[in-house]
């Protein structure tokens, strides 16, 4: 299997299984304002990973979040990450949409990411809900969820400091030594499900690419691997690859947001030519 | 579905041995004869003998026991308490209903946890009672109603609804009126009131394709006979509108007939309470 993959890689002239280059993203399709009832919503497709996010708030704290943050004077962000039971690509079906350990962990990570971008000091004693619904999974779903949540926050008109952008970088095979010079050595960005399942490690980075050039502020890193260790010497290259992907995604999403605003904004705004 | 870890549930997969009986032989026999006469010789609109008694569970605020043929149901109602896990204020009080078959009541053993059928029946029970109870009289409070079937001889949900309404009035919960309920079965254009367990099985299976009429099904209807209102209607099976009308009418009349029985039972319990009070006063003097 492993050998076969490498043969294939050479055959494909350095291209990945889906025909992309190492630093190439999948096709991104965006729609903001999907739902009428939510305060903000967004639908994001990165390849075959499809995610819907709805944002409610800011409103008076209620539910479990209110009880937990009783003494908290600042704003509360409440996140729920749930996965549709039919979202897996293979024939298998998920048993429960949420409440398992992985979903709870992802909700928590999502909350951290959102806390780092929302200007919470503007919303004392109020709550903002971010609900993520994963409709189809094909790798990088947590990163796509963060991207979609950012778009939904923008749609809701909640002031944010910067885009929180997630991108994965995956080493297809960290054990092989002979491909040091090939383009895949620094990892491939925006991994698909198949690439995530490969024996190498996958690094997910949530960055704020706009705030500074070295983009280390508010960095959230999640590493996961299929039981494989990652050599420290390769971490730096992998990180740079992922950050590079983050910047690319930011540009694409930024353009989409501006386009959305020109199309849907009030007539008085469109005459102002805010957008270049 | 969380599994109850504390009790011994027996082996995970067991199959009741009755399904290996040649049940078809006997059932087809009754299926054929059903259109003409019922197994216990009743008329199609005739109800079984009914017995009701209130105040049989000493620990409960109000309780009732009902017997309809083989069916035996105990129902108890407890004091109002604050609605658990509720943050807001609700203007209307709530009813919490739990319908449960006791483990030995049916042909197949029931586990201690509610299965999906019992949960469904709990919801029906709640809807049937809700419109009869003056819920605005106890805002932000919840009244618990527990119905336990001791012996399932058919129509146990209808029996549970009646017992619950008696138990609620025994517990002095303010109500608009009594609730009576009757189960009806339809099989090939004919309907039968107050089904036995055997008839329930027959009526919930579709007749053969070859037969002229494909109608079958079970209707559970709860009425407020003192107001002429239907508080709950539930049908499952497959039937057309032409058969629905006479069934609804027949159930409505049957529900009216049941009302005096329940009223007498309540009068009796009130008289008993008065007598007890008199006796106590005499003793005091």
């Amino acid at each position, binding site marked *: 299997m492993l050998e076969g993959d490498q043969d294939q890689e050479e055959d494909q002239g350095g291209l990945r299984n889906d025909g992309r280059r190492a630093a190439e993203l999948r096709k991104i399709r965006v729609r903001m304002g999907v739902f009428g009832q939510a305060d903000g919503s967004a639908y994001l497709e990165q390849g075959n990973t499809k995610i819907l996010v709805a944002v409610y708030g800011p409103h008076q704290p209620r539910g479990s979040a209110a009880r937990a943050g009783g003494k908290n004077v600042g704003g509360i962000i409440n996140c729920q990450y749930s996965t549709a039971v*039919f979202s897996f690509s293979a024939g298998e079906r998920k048993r429960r949409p949420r409440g398992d350990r992985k979903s709870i962990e992802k909700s928590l990570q999502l909350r951290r990411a959102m806390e780092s971008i929302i200007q919470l000091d503007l919303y004392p004693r109020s709550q903002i809900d971010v609900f993520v*619904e994963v409709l189809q999974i094909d790798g990088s779903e947590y990163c796509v969820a963060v991207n979609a949540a950012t778009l939904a926050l923008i749609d809701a008109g909640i002031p944010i400091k910067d885009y929180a952008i997630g991108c994965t970088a995956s080493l297809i095979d960290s054990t092989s030594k002979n491909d040091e010079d090939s383009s895949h050595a620094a990892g491939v960005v925006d991994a698909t499900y198949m690439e995530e399942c490969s024996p190498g490690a996958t690094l997910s980075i949530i960055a704020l690419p706009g705030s500074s050039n070295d983009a280390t502020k508010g960095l959230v890193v999640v590493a996961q691997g299929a039981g494989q260790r990652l050599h420290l010497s390769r971490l730096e290259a992998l990180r740079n690859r992922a950050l590079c992907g983050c910047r690319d995604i930011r540009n694409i999403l930024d353009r989409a947001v501006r386009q959305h605003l020109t199309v849907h904004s009030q007539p008085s705004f469109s005459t102002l030519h805010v957008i270049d | 579905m969380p599994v109850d870890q504390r009790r011994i549930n027996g082996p995970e997969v067991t199959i009741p041995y009755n399904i290996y009986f040649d049940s078809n032989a006997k059932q087809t026999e009754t299926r054929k004869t059903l259109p003409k006469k019922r197994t216990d010789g009743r008329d199609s609109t005739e109800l079984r003998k009914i017995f009701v008694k209130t105040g049989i569970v000493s620990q409960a605020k109000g309780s009732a026991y009902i017997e309809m043929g083989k069916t035996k149901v105990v129902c108890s109602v407890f004091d109002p308490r604050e609605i658990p896990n509720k943050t807001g204020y609700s203007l209307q009080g709530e009813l919490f209903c739990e319908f449960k078959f006791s483990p030995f009541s049916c042909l197949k053993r029931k586990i201690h946890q509610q299965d999906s059928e019992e949960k469904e029946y709990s919801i029906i029970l709640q809807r049937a009672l809700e*419109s009869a109870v003056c819920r605005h009289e106890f805002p932000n409070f919840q009244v618990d109603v527990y119905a336990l079937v001791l012996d399932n001889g058919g129509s146990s949900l209808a029996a549970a609804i009646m017992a619950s309404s008696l138990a609620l009035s025994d517990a002095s919960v303010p109500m608009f009126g009594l609730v009576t309920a009757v189960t009806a079965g339809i099989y090939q254009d004919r309907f039968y009131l107050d089904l036995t367990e055997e008839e329930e099985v027959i009526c919930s299976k579709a007749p053969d394709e070859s037969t002229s009429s494909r109608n079958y099904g079970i209707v559970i209807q709860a009425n407020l006979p003192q107001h002429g209102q239907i508080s709950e*209607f539930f049908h499952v099976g*497959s039937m057309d509108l032409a058969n629905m009308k006479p069934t609804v009418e027949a159930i409505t009349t049957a529900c009216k007939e049941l009302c005096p029985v329940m009223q007498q039972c309540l009068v009796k319990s009130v008289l008993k309470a008065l007598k007890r009070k008199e006796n106590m006063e005499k003793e005091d003097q």
Partner: protein
Amino acid sequence: MADIPLSLAEKTFILHGVDANFRNDGRIRNEYRAMELETKLMPQTNGSARIRLGNTDVLVGVKVEVDTPFPDNPFEGKLEFFVDCSANATPAFEGKGGDSLATEISNTLALAYQSPHAINLKTLSILPHQQCWKIYVDILILQCGGNLFDAVSIAVKAALYSTEIPKVTAATLDGGKPDIQLSDDPYDCIKLDAKNFPVLVTLCKIGDNCVVDPSSEEETCSSASIVLSTLPDGRFTSVVKMGHGSLQPTTLIKTLEIGKLVGIKLNASVMESLKKEDALGTNRPIFGFLR
């Protein structure tokens, strides 16, 4: 469900509108809102559909798995409904908040489909007593703007209509163990017979009249509604009362009469539009949520 606080005056306004057969969105009493229905929009499922009915938005995915049949129904396959009320619809559904509504909907659907007149589960059998298909119908409620039951049932019907089950080329018993071979060609599938699938029709009693397809504002005005599942030939496979109010026997019969007529029409128009969509062929563009 999402509670919309309405004042007494607003409620009276809606009530008078229903009395005059002119509702506040301009519809008459038994008129549906415009629906948008799309099938086969998720490639990872065996069948899928999405419906938008006003503000109500429901996504249904169907997956099939091989399972062992129930011992008391050895010749039949299995059909299971699972409803997930996404918190996207309203924050009240967060965590376990939507569970009671979800069970209510899935129970109602199971009742509607339990009759052999609606779906013949015998066609899902592979090897009697040994193997059968199990169809999981997973319903994801993304937004509720009233009339959830009808919307869900139409989406379920459409998703089951689009469902393709792999063809079994050989099913034998090998030493007491079942041995199944599926067709190698992924396009070699069998479709379910959707001719008799039911739809649910909710009739919401507002004042003395019944309306179909209530908006969420109208739902708050009503104390009782009847949800009936009708087959294309006008038969009922289930009738369930919702809400805490009571109604008169004559009203009930009248409601059932209206429901029968509406159900026949709704069934026919859903089938017609599904066939129209089918006629577009496999190369039609898929819009999904991008539109």
